[in-house]
């Protein structure tokens, strides 16, 4: 027993864990760019970052999302519990749909964001970035619910791109044709397919028991042969998600349990998520703090989408007002191949980015053959997404 425990759990001196799709992705891999995603090996590049990006936007991409943290919430009080936990109204969410949501601590600071799958009024799944089990358990006190950690039992695959629907239909999952965005369906062979994704494109996510991983992969891979299917890594996905304006916890903002410094934590309003907070709900964790924050205008930051002059990506660059005063930082940036612009997501100190939107600059350092070029580039604040695709929302997906 003890040996097993050591083998599986002391991952600080062990190689990263392998997802059920590891072998399949590894066989596609040409150079071996692996990254650590929640303790799992996740490909940052499978073969070629640009080609992988264009698979997302032009054909079909396959991305392994098994490392997502997954919790199953079951029980009589599941809906009430989730209404306490999350800022959105779970009672208004339709059965067999997915909603993007987040949850806050007592001070109204964001603990994590994630997607909530509603199978029934008493059966849900949360997929998120961080481990949240202790918080979920403590929040569930007094509720009749069971919280099941199923991260290691459920694998996930994301199929995104214009031909993704065709691939799935060809693979035999005809039911997906009816799926509107954020709807989900369970197939006969126990696959959960939802029309969701992190790319802003037409796409689907499949959650399945580990043991079905190989057979499902093979089926999809075969179906995609002539539809340009391509395994992709985190880097290509990152470009697509920035184009859509999606944020990542502990990348675009620091979650309140991770922040070491008091001024790093963010409330939903400060990361552009005020639309999500349902103040008409009688109660949710952090509501009273958020009421106070809004009443007293205590928010100090604003989250913004930026277009930057030139073509140099501005990762981590400082944002200046009038080229002098530091007013913010770029949290994610890329050259957008689809929008053909240098784009970025950024956190700015109020009132910059809100009342003051002009005369903002970023300082970019570019290394070219062992010499730095320092440039001040003008930025303009725009509305995300940078890339808006009609096919993302059309149902059935193959209609014109």
């Amino acid at each position, binding site marked *: 027993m003890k040996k097993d425990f050591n083998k599986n759990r002391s991952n600080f001196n062990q190689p990263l864990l392998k997802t059920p799709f590891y072998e399949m992705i590894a066989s596609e891999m040409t150079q071996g760019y692996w990254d650590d995603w929640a303790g799992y090996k996740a490909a940052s590049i499978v073969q070629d970052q640009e080609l992988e990006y264009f698979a997302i936007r032009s054909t079909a991409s396959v991305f392994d999302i098994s490392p997502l943290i997954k919790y199953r919430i079951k029980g009589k009080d599941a809906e009430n519990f989730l209404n306490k936990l999350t800022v959105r109204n779970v009672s208004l969410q339709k059965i067999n749909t997915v909603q993007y949501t987040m949850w806050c601590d*007592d001070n109204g600071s964001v603990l994590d964001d994630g997607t909530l799958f509603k199978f029934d009024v008493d059966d849900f799944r949360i997929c998120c970035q961080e481990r949240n089990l202790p918080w979920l358990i*403590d929040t569930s006190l*007094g509720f009749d619910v069971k919280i099941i950690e199923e991260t290691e039992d459920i694998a996930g695959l994301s199929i995104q791109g214009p031909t993704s629907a065709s691939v799935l239909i060809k693979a035999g999952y005809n039911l997906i044709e009816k799926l509107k965005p954020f709807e989900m369906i369970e197939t006969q062979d126990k696959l959960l397919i939802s029309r969701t994704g992190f790319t802003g494109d037409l796409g689907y996510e499949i959650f399945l028991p580990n043991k079905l991983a190989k057979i499902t992969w093979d089926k999809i891979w075969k179906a995609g042969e002539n539809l340009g299917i391509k395994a992709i890594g985190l880097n290509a996905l990152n470009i697509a998600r920035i184009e859509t304006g999606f944020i990542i916890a502990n990348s675009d903002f620091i979650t309140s349990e991770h922040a070491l410094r008091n001024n790093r934590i963010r409330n939903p309003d400060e990361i552009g998520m005020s639309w999500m907070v349902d103040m008409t709900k009688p*109660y949710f964790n952090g*509501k009273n703090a958020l009421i106070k924050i809004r009443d007293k205008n205590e928010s100090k930051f604003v989250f913004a989408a930026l277009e930057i002059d030139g073509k140099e990506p501005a990762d981590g660059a400082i944002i200046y007002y009038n080229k002098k005063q530091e007013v913010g930082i770029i949290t994610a940036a890329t050259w957008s191949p689809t929008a053909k612009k240098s784009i970025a997501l950024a956190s700015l100190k109020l009132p910059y980015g809100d009342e003051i939107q002009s005369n903002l600059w970023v300082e970019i350092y570019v290394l070219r053959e062992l010499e730095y070029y320092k440039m001040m580039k003008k930025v303009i604040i725009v509305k995300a997404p940078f890339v808006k695709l009609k096919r993302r929302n059309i149902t059935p997906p193959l209609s014109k």
Partner: protein
Amino acid sequence: MQEVLMKSFDVIVVGAGHNGLAASIKLAKTGRKVLLLETSSEPGGLAASKEVFNGFKTATLPHIINQLSSKAIRELDLLKYGLETKNYSIPTICIDHSGRYIQLSGNYGSEIEGISSLDQKNWINLKKRLTYQSSLLKRFIYDSPINKDNNKLLQKLKFLKAGIDLRLKGREEFQEFFRMILMCVADVLEEEINNDLLKGLLSFDATLGINLGPRSPTSLMGLLYKLSGEVNGEQSSQIFPKGGIEKLVDTFYKSAIGSGVKIIFDQEVKNLIIENNKIQGVKTINGKEYRANKVLSSVSPIKTFFEFIGHKKLDTGVLRELKSLRYKGNVSKLNLALDQKPVSSFLDNQCLNSRIVYAPSINHVEKKFNPSKYKELPEDPCFEILFPSIIDDDLAPNKITTASIIIQNTPYDLKAGWEKSKEILYNSILTRLDSLFPGLKKSIIASQFLSPVDIESQFNVPGGHWHHSELQIDRLYSLRPIFKYSNYKTSIKNLYICGAGTHPGGGISGNPGINAANQIIVDEK
């Protein structure tokens, strides 16, 4: 059927324990209309009188006071309603199994019989130092503790001033304070005192009512807390008020009535009515609704938050903190009625007017504490015994002698369960008592044993803890009951808390009630 009573009150106070009464008096005296709701049919809470035998009622739990300050007595008009404490100080005797004893008289041992003159001198010096140290803590007893919500400069300066005063006392006193403050009481005593009985007594008094042994770090704090008390201006005194605790509670009650508080008994609150995070009133178990803009709960924080509000409506962070409160009591109470006055083979009759403590040595107290860590009962536990009817003849019917015994280290969540253990503990105590007072066992005509579990059910205190929750260094001042709520305010608008679970804690002092009432008055200004 639901009955809704209109908002004719300014404040509803829940729980007519002495703190609930104190807060009500204080608020009513400012002209506020106060409604006080009590579950039982008697005022007093843990100090309430209940029937012990055959229609004879007495205060069943506490038997002496050492915390009722002259400030509280004045502010609550207790003298006007018949409180008599002057000249009712009682001595303490500490005895061991062989009958050796010491007697402390005056204010906690200004004079001690039965110890060497060297020890006498040592104790006077140590007591002086401890009293000074406790006086530093005492400065903060009447304050609403500092927290995020309550951090006025003036209050912070008070800490600075205490620090400066301490430093001005000289380098030695300054260093000793910081050296000693977190020490265990055993180490301090072993440095200074030789007499085992004195060390045993001080160990007992430092740890009575909390889950610490004399060798547990920070246990000295318990002794400082005890010494910080004053009754009617007399520092560290120990008083059996005229008429006993029942009379004392009666003065609280009469003062409340006199100041216009409306008290309704037999009204068990089921839950608080909260709308939009604002308190609206309370609902009783028989469906009655009482409405007011403010509610002050003097019951245990565990009950207030987990029962009256419920886990579902509390933010998870607060829930986590409240969940960590240690609220399981470890003190039991035995009340006896005897058909004849006890006679001791070691003590003369005069001594029966004292509080008699059985705590032969530090090691004895520590050893009796050890089993409680493993949820077991000690054999031959430490206890204190008082004969109320001997101290005050008016207190019992003809020729009957009453005995009041407080037993230490009897954990709430006994592994073997209380059903089976009660008799074992009872016999163990009586065997010891019979050896100290031969024939006492035979003279028993009635007895009442209250384990922490009984106290929980009879007095509506979760865990049966006399202080509502552990009174230890991690739960004092700003941290009592939790940091966020330490200034008697809660995250629910206009819901306030007081009672032993709040600063400055248990003991019959009235301070939590008075402080909370003051907070309400300040907030309304």
